[in-house]
């Protein structure tokens, strides 16, 4: 007898002309990854809840009225997906351009040069120049913490730090303040990081940060490598416990 209580079914779908099978509880991004199709993403990090915010992972689905974010859209039977159509590839490049134009991402002087997700994405997506006007804001750096520094000039507002602090560490030190182009991630209610009463100093935020916005003190140009092994480990361990 088949198990009628199963929470998912097996579905077949087509990604970029290739027929694949997947579980109905998987996202398009997961199904694609399993089949060695890489969809770029920035706010997505395996182990954290997906929010569909960066829009880099949008894909075309045949028959859908608009582009869908692949990190939060579940696969369905008969779906026909195009992950690298000319339209979405161009849009991805523009989104990256927008990030470069929004804050001050100068790789040559950045602690994360060579180990930066944004930089890697730009290379992968073929971003050769930025044709949007730079906004060059002058944002204050928070170096009040003993061991870490927060440089909002390099922040892309992916909120990985917010989520890891809330979901994994349980401290919820980080959150977003302000709206639109004025939005910033802040510690506690905008207090200096070093004075935060909720921060446990675990450093998880620093290591999930895709850019050099969060880094360890004492690191110079290109020296800040992020270590994220803890995240899949903790995720698996917690699932086992449950």
């Amino acid at each position, binding site marked *: 007898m088949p198990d009628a209580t199963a929470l998912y079914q097996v579905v077949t779908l087509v990604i970029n002309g290739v027929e694949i099978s997947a579980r109905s509880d998987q996202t398009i991004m997961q199904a694609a990854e399993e089949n060695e199709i890489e969809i770029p993403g920035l706010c997505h990090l395996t182990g954290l809840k997906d*929010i*569909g*915010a*960066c*829009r*880099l992972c*949008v894909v075309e689905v045949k028959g859908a009225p*608009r*582009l869908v*974010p692949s990190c*939060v*859209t579940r696969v369905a039977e008969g779906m026909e997906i195009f992950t690298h159509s000319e*339209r979405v590839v*161009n*849009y991805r490049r*523009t*989104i990256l351009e*927008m*990030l470069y*134009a*929004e804050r001050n991402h100068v790789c040559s002087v950045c602690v994360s040069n060579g180990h930066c997700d944004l930089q890697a994405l730009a290379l992968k997506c073929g971003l050769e120049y930025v*044709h*949007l*006007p730079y*906004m060059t804001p002058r944002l204050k750096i928070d170096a009040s913490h003993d061991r870490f520094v927060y440089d909002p000039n390099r922040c*892309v*507002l992916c909120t990985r730090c917010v989520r890891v602090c809330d979901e994994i560490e349980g401290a919820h030190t980080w*959150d*977003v303040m*302000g*709206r*639109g*182009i*004025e*939005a910033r991630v802040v510690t506690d209610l905008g207090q200096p990081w070093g004075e935060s009463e909720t921060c446990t100093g675990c450093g998880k935020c620093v290591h999930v940060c895709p850019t050099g916005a969060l880094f360890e003190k004492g690191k110079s140009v290109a020296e800040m490598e992020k270590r994220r092994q803890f995240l899949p480990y903790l995720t698996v361990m917690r699932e086992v416990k449950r």
Partner: protein
Amino acid sequence: MNLDELQKMAEQEREVKEGQPQKIRVCMGTGCVASFSDRVLQALNEKCKEMGLERDVLRLEVGCLGLCSNGPLVKVDKHNTLYQHVTPEDVPTILESLKEGPGEGDICPTDLPFFTRQQKIVLENSGVINPDQIEEYIAADGYLALLTAVSQMSPTEVIAEITHSGLRGRGGAGYPTGLKWNTVAKAPSEKKYVICNGDEGDPGAFMDRSVMEDDPHRVLEGMAIAAYAVGADQGYIYVRAEYPRAIKRLKTAINRAERLGLLGKNIGGTPFSFHVEVRVGAGAFVCGEETALIASIEGHRGQPRPRPPYPAQSGLWGFPTLINNVETFANVPSIIRRGAAWFAGIGTEKSKGTKVFCLTGAVAHTGLIEVPMGITLREIVFDIGGGIPNGRKFKAVQTGGPSGGCIPEQFLDMPVDYDSLKSVGSIMGSGGMIVIDDSSCMVDVAKYFMEFCMSESCGKCIPCRVGTAQMYHLLQQITAGEATMTELALLEELCEMVRDTSLCGLGQSAPNPVISTLRFFREEYLAHIQERRCPAGVCPITATEGVLSHA
């Protein structure tokens, strides 16, 4: 209170009204209060006391009388006379006219097309009843639909009635209301919620505000009927904090209705219970987006999340949630009371019923109007609105606020319904209608709406957060005469990209005002860029020769 008791009470109330003395209605809508109708009321009260007329003349505080441009408005029932631009000094004249009939004073003719061309369903009690008196609402057949529904109809029958009426969501997108109710009703869950979206934020729009202020019970009744239909027992009305009068009146209304057993536990003596709470928004436009609104009620930052799952499956605290706009709920009691066929007989094939608009901008008569769907824009602007004042020429109508577009003269004879407006690149929206004459620059109009979207973007997704700011700066360059065709091409590229990739409706529709003005008024953009000239003479062109030659 059961159905018989309600009808008895309504009957009594109407009898009392018949026997009442002279009635003077003073408009206490926001527009009139802003031009000091509260002082008129105060003067009226004092004068009546002075003349010993306190018992003979009943002074009623009513909701919006409609013609906001001519406020403060005072209506005398006896001769059906509407006084306009009333000041406290006019009070003796008005009281005098009670004896001798209307003569003196600034009288507004009530046979103006502004009044005669309207058809009122949602606003039928606006300007007629005192919103704080539940008895007056009951006398106007209030809560009859709710008690009929809960005692004589099954939830399925209620949903069928709404479906057959053809009612579509009045928040802007026009999603069929019956279908939405049905989806929530079928969602498997013990707990469900009903939310009323009163976070009206479009510039120049005050429809929902008026409905909530003038006839709060109508909204509550609509919500309660919806709750019965979908199986919810808890509701929230989300009202923005900028509407203190609406908040106060809704709270009073909830209190009164609960005391009469028309809301709360065991409504009308049946097992159906429905509790309503008012939630006050903190002034973010994006909270009008349903998922952001839900996040805000939950106490989180007001940010949208990707859909699906839709609130009908997973809404407030993860439970199936029905979320409709104020005006949608306000239509419901009339549909249940008068039948789906009656409602479906009004309007066009695909858009049924009426729509409330806020007619503002360059028209002679601005104010709150309710018209049947399918009326033409020309009728609204030139008949109801009385045309363009000051000898100016009509240029466009802006509908749908920052998510909508500008409709030029060639479409004036188009019927106003969801689908026609969409076909010309605008939307019905929640009902803001801004008339633009030839003294306005369309690039400047587009820039205004883009600035609005930029400052109201929540910042969660990149295309909306950065895209609106980039587009605003490009529009700034164009209006300053500093732009070249390269900037225009970039603007068009960004419009498309932001529309296609943004997370929620705010970003997806933010480029609309630019797209629609580029479609119909491209020559104005070109004049700014190629001739460094603003045809309407609005934009200060500051570019230097250097900038031009550099281009």
